[in-house]
Structures are given as C-alpha cells and as structure tokens.
C-alpha cells in the first residue's frame, strides 16, 4: 500500500513540474517529486527491521540506516536547489513582472 502512495506522490510531483504554468508551482512540484524519492529510500530501509537505528544497548531489529543517511544529504541538496530556483524566479519576476512561464517565453522571444 505505502509503495503505491509513494509512486502517487512521485507522479504528482512530475505532473506539477510539467503541467503547471506558474514558476513557483513548478518548484513546488519539484519538491514533491523529491519528497517522493526520500520516502522511497526510507521505505527501502524499512524492510529489514522496525525500530529506529539508534545504536544503544538492547536495541535490536533496527531498520537499515544507510538510506536514511543518504536522504539527509539529498534533502540538504534539495533545499539548496529550491533556494537557488526561488532566487531565479524572483529575478525573473523583477524582469518580466509575471510568474507565468508561457508569457515569459513569449516576451523573451521578442527581446
């Protein structure tokens, strides 16, 4: 069940990225897409155990910690990308006074 939910989140992200005209919505779509992948990794790690991988005495049956460690990195990278993309959107808005990609494409053609 959770696997299908993850696939659904991934697909929603792709749809948002492709179909939305608003630049900020596109970036949110990218974020949703990334969340889908983060969930997928955590889901992979959860196959072999049930408890959180805090290595103290008496704790057994932990989940695979590697995907979680990888995802910490991936989340940080995602934040950097979002920040840079939003900065670019701000600049685009200052230049073209619109957030619609189709209108920006029309305007920058005549330039």
């Amino acid at each position, binding site marked *: 069940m959770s696997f299908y939910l993850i696939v659904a989140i991934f697909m929603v992200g792709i749809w948002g990225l*492709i179909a939305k005209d608003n630049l900020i919505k596109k970036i949110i779509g990218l974020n949703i897409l*990334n969340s889908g*992948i983060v969930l*997928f990794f955590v889901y992979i790690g959860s196959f072999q155990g049930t408890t959180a991988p805090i290595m103290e005495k008496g704790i057994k049956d932990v989940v695979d910690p590697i995907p979680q460690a990888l995802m910490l*990195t991936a989340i940080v990278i995602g934040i*950097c990308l979002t920040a840079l*993309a939003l900065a670019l*959107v701000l600049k*685009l808005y200052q230049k073209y006074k619109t957030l619609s990609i189709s209108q920006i494409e029309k305007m*920058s053609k005549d330039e």
Partner: protein
Amino acid sequence: MNNILILLIVLPLLSSFLVLLVSFISRSFPGKIFSLGGIALSLGLLFLIAPAIFSGGTFSYSVGGWKGPLGITLYMDGLAWLTSLIGTIIALLALIYSSGEKDYHPRFYFFFLLLLVGMQGVILTDDIFNMFVFFEILSISTYALVAYFQTGRAIRASFDYLLLSSLGAAFFLLGIGLIYQAGGVLSLEGIREVTIHLQKNSPSMFNLAVVCLVIGIGIKAAFIPLHTWLPNAHAYAPTPVSALLSAVMIKVSFLATWRIIDIFQAFSLQYLFIWLGAFTAFLAVIWALAQTDIKKILAYHSISQMGFIVASFGVASSLSLTASFFHIINHSLFKSLLFLSAGLVIYTTGIRDVSKLSGLGRKMPLGFFACLVGSLSISGIPPFNGFASKNLISLSLKNYPVAAFLILLASVGTVASFSKIMRIFVGSSAGDRIKKVPLSMTLPLLILCAFCLALGIFPSWGAGGISRLIVPGSFSLPGVYTFWQVAASILILAVGIVFYLLTLTSYGKRVFGYIRQMRLGLNNSLLLLIISLIFFVIFIQLF
C-alpha cells in the same frame, strides 16, 4: 601519493572559500590570485603523479579512513587522470582569459572553483551516491554561473536548465534507490560484482534502474532528445564559463554515462547510442546552420560533436572507444578555443550577430588565426586534431552505413556553418577602431592552438596513449594520414562551402529562418525528458 586524490578535490574547494572570505575582508585585494593558485596547484599535483600513471599505476583513497564497500573510495586510473588533466588545463586557461576580459565579482570565481570541485569529484569517485552529490555541486555552480549576467535571457536559460537537470537528478536518485534495494551496494565496483546476478533475478527492475541512471546523467551530456537546455545556457553564460561548460561539463557527464553503461553491462542501450549519436550529430548541425548568434552556433555544434562522440561510443569496439575518447579530448580543446575566440570578437566589437560583422581579420589578426585553427579543427581538415579523431570515428562506423552517412552529412554541415563564422573576418570593414585586447586574453588562445596542432600532426601520441589506457592488450591503430582520407576531407570542405553558398540564397534563408523559429518551450522539454525515459525503458526491455 594516494592522498593526492583528495587534495585534487580539497584544493579548489579551499581556494573557493578563500576567494569569498578575502572579498568580505578587503574589497581591493585581488581574490582571484587564490583561484589561480588553487587550479595551478591541482595541475602541479596531476603532473606529479604522471610518471606513476604512465607506468600503469592506479591510485585509491578511502575518504575519512572508512574502507569500502560502505565507505567512499576515490579511485584514479589512466582515463580518469587524462580527463582530470584536460579539465584542469582548460579551467586554468579560461580563468586566465577571464582575468583579462572583465572585472568579475569574487562570486564568479567562487562558483568557478566549485565547478572544478564537482568535476574532479565526479571523475574520481567510486561511489554512486557520492557521484550524485558531486554532480549536484557541479550543476548548482553552473546554474549560478549561467545566470551571472542577470539579463532576462540568461536567467531564463539558467532556470530552464535547473528544472530539466533537477528532474534528471531526481531520476538518477531513483535509480540509485532501485539498485540499492536490489543489490544492497553503492560502490561502483560492488555493483559490477552483483550486476550479472541482478540481470538474471530481477531484470525489469534492473533495466528501470539503468535507464533512470543513464537518463539522469544523460540530460547533462546533452545528446538529442535531452539537449533542449544547452543552446541557451551555453550562449548566455559568460564566455569563460561557456568554454568550460562545453569543454568539461558535458564531457564529464558523458564519461559518467560511459562508466555506468560499462558497469551495468547495458549493451543494448549502448547499441541505441549509435543511432542517437548519428541523429544528434545531423540534426544539431541543421539548427546550428539556422542560427545567427555566434555563441549559439557554437553551442549547437557542441551538441553535434557530442553526437560524433556518442555514436562512436555506441559501436563498442576497441577502435571506436579509442576514437570516442580521443574526440572527447580534441573537442574539449577546439571548442574551448572557439568559444574563447568568439568571446574575443564579442569583447572587441560588442556584437554577437554574425550577419552584422565583417572585415575583422585585419583588425584582430590573432583572433582571426585562433578562430581559423578552431574552425579547421572542428571541420576535420588536416593537419588539425579534429581530422585525426573524426577519421577514426568514421573508420569505426564502417559496419553501420546509415549512421556513417548521417555523420558525413554532419561533417558537411559543420564546414558550412563554420564558413559562416569565418566570413566575419573577411570583406570590407567599418572604419571604427576596436578595443585593445590584453595579453591574458590572447595567451590562452595561442596555447590551445598549439595543442590542436600538436595532436593533429602527431595523432599517435593522443590516440595511441588512449588506446593503451582503454584496451589492455596491444592493438594497432589504423593510420590517419592516407591519401584517400585527406582527399575525402578536402572534398567535404568543398561540398560544405558550396552548401554554405546555397544557404545564402533567398530560398535557403527562408528555410533556415523557419527552422530557427522551431524551438521547444520549457514544458515540452520536460515532457520530452519523460517520453525519452519511457522510450528507453521500452527499448531496453525489448532488446
């Protein structure tokens, strides 16, 4: 000696932070000294390990002392050394050029060095997730550099590039997840061991993972249909950055694709690359012919030359792999030469449109000479390096006549569109004086010219060395300078010039004006990425 690998990554990283730090403390202190120092030191280190590499040695370094398979290992063999060397040399030359061109903000040097960090990391790392991280460092610094001038078009180019490339990176991450789920390993050598086992047990999952990885990096390597971001991004970036993007960034991405395909033994996908490459070479040349902006012409030619490289890689014989890698190096050299000399034209005249320029040859003889060497190299005219590698590529495509024919047409188109660029140097000139060019801008051009000529006159140095690195056993390269091959290149030159004259007729102008209007928007490019992913999956499942 093994510590040198981590130093190659840390040195540019450290100097990038020093550049920014110094700019905060004192505005007047020239921070770019640090960037020059960082790159020059990396180059020195590479030369230091050269003797060991030439005697067949390899280096490996475990980051933080954590051994594989879970720890991150850096690994360098001859091919990695060669790629890293070419990248560092071109970065150094582009940096010298940039110091003469304009007073760039310290931010520029910061991102420039980060780009180098990402490049070295991608080349050296032996861990697939680490490769993803370094690819993101490489990409984020290029997004920032493309948008450096903050004109509307530059920012739009950067934004398009960001979204496309991030979607690719998301698929790359998905591919890593699928591989980790199936095999439980992340190091490339570890994956190589489990590949055969995986191909047997869960073929469809495995295929999906391979396609996700290949598309994820392929978007940065820019072969058709994943090329849509490249022309704008390369054309509106600052000139030294365009040179570095064309010469290094797409090559490193393609070499990563190469490694992935090699490790996953995705031979059916490799076969597909012959056709992708041939069509890329052919179609991109048509679009290049339609452009008038000098840097856009060069950007489309980067795609087209990637087609040559990709097609030759697809054949997968020892000759074709050697030819492909040789062309990677040659293209790095002559394309950075061409971009830098185009930058020189823009610097002196302030005009980018080739149809508005003429008679520059007398005013800037050095720029004319550099551009001529670059154009002859890319058109494959003896005795320049493009001739050597293009000949090896056409020899390796012997068994695929259709692909070879498309590549031949692409060569003719290349001659035609470089006749268009060379035309700005002849004819009558408007009388106004032009800006004086500092030595730091012309020196890199001369060095690159020397490289182009040296590798063209002695192709056995380059190709022979590469073939020893790629193919373990002894393997004799065919000669390049035979009578028929030289005659063929002269014929291509003649046909190309005739074709160029045809494009000048009113009918030709109308056709190419129409082609110039045909461009994909951002949404369609994103959709094309998804469609090509699905196509790749279907292809690899069927064959």
